């Protein structure tokens, strides 16, 4: 077996203490538990009680969505003429797609700015991003009142090109259906390749070069499109004008929404990697996670710089420190972003999984809060009204999220999504159940000793 010999040689070459075979690694630092490639979690059971619970929630949500399709919006949701947008738009789409911007943020870092360490986590970002976008689009589909007229998107002469809503209606489905789907294609084809017949293998081998030929062009589109629609999501709120509190209503909304998306994207990929590796007993990679933490800190600082620069430019800094209701809300949101921004400057915090998880979660919460507040909390329609989502509305919103969680768990199991070491790679993608302890060698810890801390 030539391949396994090569593999064994390579693994031993990765061991930095093995001075006899000191082959260099182009990706920078090297040590045993270095994440090298996506590896399926094939040793893990699929149908766990938690997964069944989320599947049940998803089923409830989707059933309600079908009922909603034939029922009017009114009795179903808590929306009214003053708060015409409920949580399906303001949370599932405007807010949660920020978490789904991992492919944008990590992709730009990896492919545009050549942070090559991050290539190995692209698949985690891509799968989660695809799920956030598709569930968001499903939410939109059941939110609009006259969905049957959406065919107009195919007739460009009917477009109102001044409308941010049009930009989103066009850009988001195209991004999910074309660019994100294409970026997720390799991991599906890879499974077919390793599990398929010889004919399949031959066919896929023939297709691979053309896939690689268009790949750089497709990822260019995959970064251009979200740059446009993530900023347009903020652009939507410009037309609401004075209805939105001046702490949030600014001509910089599109840029800030985009920066929040980048921040949440980095934060959520970090968060997701940490919790999935914990769940699937994967060793972690200090270097890659540290790099993510570093970028996340930079993203938080950039967001805060634009946020405060804008307040100063508009002369609204005083309302940020007026210590009234809005000021406290603003300060809370800012603190959620400032804490990880400062804390993640420290290498020790970046390289301690627990602190990194906490800081990534804080940054995500801050970004989400920033994107949610102007749509609902700091949104005051001209006449007094209240909005609180109804039970079916909440169940549907939760259902979409649960659907994403279930799909992610299945994807991690059947496709090479989560990063792992080359020694974990299995050509056969075997679906076998082994006791969990077997997934790790004896004496091996979850968190390998960092080369920088002897």
């Amino acid at each position: 077996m030539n391949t396994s010999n090569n593999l064994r040689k390579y693994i031993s070459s990765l061991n930095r203490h093995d001075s006899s075979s000191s082959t260099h690694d182009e990706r920078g630092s090297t040590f045993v538990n270095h994440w090298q490639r996506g590896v399926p979690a094939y040793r893990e059971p699929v149908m766990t009680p938690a997964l069944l619970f989320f599947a049940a929630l998803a089923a409830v949500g989707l059933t309600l969505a079908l009922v909603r399709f034939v029922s009017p919006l009114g009795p179903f949701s808590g929306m009214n003429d003053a708060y015409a947008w409920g949580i399906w738009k303001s949370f599932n789409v405007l807010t949660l797609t920020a978490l789904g911007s991992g492919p944008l943020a990590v992709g730009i870092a990896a492919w545009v700015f050549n942070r090559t360490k991050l290539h190995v986590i692209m698949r985690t970002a891509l799968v989660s991003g695809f799920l956030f976008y598709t569930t968001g689009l499903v939410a939109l589909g059941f939110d609009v009142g006259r969905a049957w007229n959406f065919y107009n998107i195919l007739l460009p002469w009917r477009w109102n090109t001044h409308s941010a809503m049009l930009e989103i209606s066009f850009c988001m489905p195209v991004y999910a259906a074309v660019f994100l789907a294409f970026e997720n294609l390799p991991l599906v084809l890879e499974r077919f390749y390793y599990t398929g017949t010889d004919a399949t293998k031959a066919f896929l081998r023939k297709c691979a070069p053309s896939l690689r030929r268009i790949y750089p062009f497709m990822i260019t589109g995959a970064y251009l499109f979200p740059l446009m629609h993530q900023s347009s999501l903020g652009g939507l709120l410009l037309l609401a004008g004075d209805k939105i509190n001046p702490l949030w209503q600014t001509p910089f909304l599109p840029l800030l929404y985009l920066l929040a998306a980048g921040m949440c994207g980095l934060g959520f990929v970090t968060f997701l990697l940490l919790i999935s590796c914990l769940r699937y007993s994967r060793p972690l990679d200090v270097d890659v996670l540290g790099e993510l933490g570093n970028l996340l800190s930079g993203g938080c600082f950039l967001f805060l710089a634009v946020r405060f620069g804008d307040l100063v430019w508009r002369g609204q800094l005083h309302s940020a420190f007026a210590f009234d209701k809005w000021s406290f809300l603003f300060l809370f949101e800012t603190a959620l972003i400032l804490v990880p921004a400062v804390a993640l400057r420290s290498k020790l915090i970046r390289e301690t999984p627990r602190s990194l998880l906490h800081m990534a979660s804080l940054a995500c919460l801050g970004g989400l809060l920033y994107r949610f507040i102007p749509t609902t909390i700091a949104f005051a329609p001209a006449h007094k009204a209240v909005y609180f989502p109804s039970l079916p509305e909440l169940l549907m919103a939760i259902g979409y999220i649960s659907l994403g969680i279930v799909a992610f768990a299945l994807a991690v199991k059947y496709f090479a999504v989560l990063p792992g070491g080359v020694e974990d790679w299995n050509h056969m993608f075997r679906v076998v159940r082994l006791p969990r302890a077997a997934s790790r060698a004896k004496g091996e810890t979850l968190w390998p000793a960092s080369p920088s801390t002897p």
Partner: protein
Amino acid sequence: MNSEITRRQALLGILGLGGTVAGTLVAPAAAEEHPAHPVAPPDAVSMLYDNTICTGCRACMMACNDANGLPSDTLLSGGLWDTPTGLNSKTKNIIQCYEEPNGAGFAYVKRQCMHCLDPACVTGCPFGALKKNEWGAVTWDGSLCIGCRYCEVACPFDVPKFEWDHWNPKIVKCEFCFEQRLKENQQPACTGVCPTGAVIFGKRVDLLAKAKERIAASPDKYFEKRVYGEHEAGGTQVLYLSNVAFEKIGLPKLGSTSLGHYATKVTSVIYKWLSGPIVVAGILGAMIKRNWDRHEAERPEREKQTGLQDQL
């Protein structure tokens, strides 16, 4: 590690920078589609409502329901008569009464679509279901509407209403009786029926002049000695004179810049001829291609080393 920029990439970069500069220089020179302070065309029709004349007889509400085929909103009256609490999906026009808290006096107000000169709802409507029509009437076309309700979020006057209780919901708002009356050379139902002349119909230039005449004739009578709608949100085609503060009768305090201008002044430059996206795609594409080519050059060696195929 070869980080030299090839001739082609340099060219792309120069093209990109040139495009950005040209885009920013050329775009403002072209005619603005959403000027900050739009000017009403000479044939723009208008309504002038003066609440010092209105007696609150609500004849305009009945006439509006008749002209638009709207049902009576009898929810509050237990099925007896039309008693809407505000503009809603059954009410395109309403007379409301404001009472001073100490009972010192009261004032009526007629609410309907303001028919803005640069309407926020029209700017936001993705497929142009809401449209600024001939003479400036803002109308709704059900065949283009996807029911996204952006018009409701955008309208500073909270005018468009959505049929929450219908499976085939419409956006309901005053359309200046465009189809049924304006096109037939008739004035809208509400102005036609008004017995006291509290709301009158005419060209916007004429009615604006008339309103200013009334203010000049009795300056102490009118709040702030000004016409509401002359400048609000860039100007509206419905004009108001009031003897109490406009905010008290539900007319919000607004700036004089059109919301369409505020929302599109930056994006209209960036998206002009798609120059912004093309420039960004060029810059991203050049950098990605460079890193991609490096990746592809290193790939065979790496695959040989590990015996595993490269993963994308």
